[in-house]
């Protein structure tokens, strides 16, 4: 089993995120936030940022990005915050409510039954 990020020297991960070691509670990216690229990669861009933009031509969840890049989720979240702040990606966050929307639950059931 491959453990993304495991083979990376900690200092590589440190460099990737300019030393920020935690994505923190205020990071808006949920595991299943769907990320969509708003532009193409440009030359000279940090290679992980470019890789994310290529991956997210179609909506792609944060966990899938992390798995594809073989980076821990926390590092992926930091990279995504940078891209979001620069307007290079948009984020479709899960609709969260204190209780699940009954319409959504019904849609989930219909979807599962149709599998």
């Amino acid at each position, binding site marked *: 089993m491959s453990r993304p*990020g495991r083979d990376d020297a900690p200092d590589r991960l440190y460099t990737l995120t300019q030393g920020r070691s935690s994505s923190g509670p205020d990071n808006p990216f949920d*595991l299943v936030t769907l990320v969509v690229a708003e532009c193409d990669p440009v030359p000279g861009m940090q290679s992980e940022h470019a890789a994310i933009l290529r991956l997210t031509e179609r*909506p792609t969840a944060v966990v899938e990005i992390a798995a594809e890049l073989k980076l821990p989720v926390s590092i992926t979240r930091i990279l995504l915050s940078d891209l979001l702040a620069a307007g290079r990606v948009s984020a479709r966050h899960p609709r*969260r409510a204190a209780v699940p929307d009954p319409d959504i*639950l019904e849609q989930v059931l219909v979807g*599962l039954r149709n599998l």
Partner: protein
Amino acid sequence: MDSATSETHTASETRTPLGASADNGLKIVVVGGFGAGKTTMVRSVSEIRPLNTEETMTQAGEDVDDTRGVRGKTATTVAFDFGRITLDAHNVLYLFGAPGQERFWFLWDRLFSGTLGAVVLVDTRRIDDSWYAIDRLEKHGTPFIVACNDFGGPAFPPEQVREALDLDPHVPLVGCDARSRESSKLVLITLVEHIQALYADPARAPRQELV
């Protein structure tokens, strides 16, 4: 699972992208003891080969309700796998196979945040492996059902399993074969129906017993 992650290039080239209109990610967590069949169930229903990733905790006091497990800034890393089910043009369900061990409690908190509900997979030969998972779910108020994975051992009567798990009478208990797509699908449907019933009328505990 090994092949799913060791052949990243192949995996990337054959990635099945979501439709452009997908905008709502949903989560269901599959928990259970070592070898209970979590990855197998995720694989059975997923439209992608299960992927593996990890979450790292590097700081103390990061929105946790109990910091005993975190010593200073020790980094702790937990791997988990997940699969995906496209439900319709907007909704995408992610299924997480989460480690059920006690030392991973902090990851559970994170995974459970915003999770629709959980499937507790039980290997009836090792029922006590699931006590901890059920404990955490009850504490979180996360809706869950229990699915007994059939490993071909002696079949235990449902009442006996319920008693061993000290299961609330309204929590559905089903049998399943995690290797079967149809069976795993039924487990998920049972969970979502249970969630619906819970939220439709929280005062009324659903009476239906499913085994």
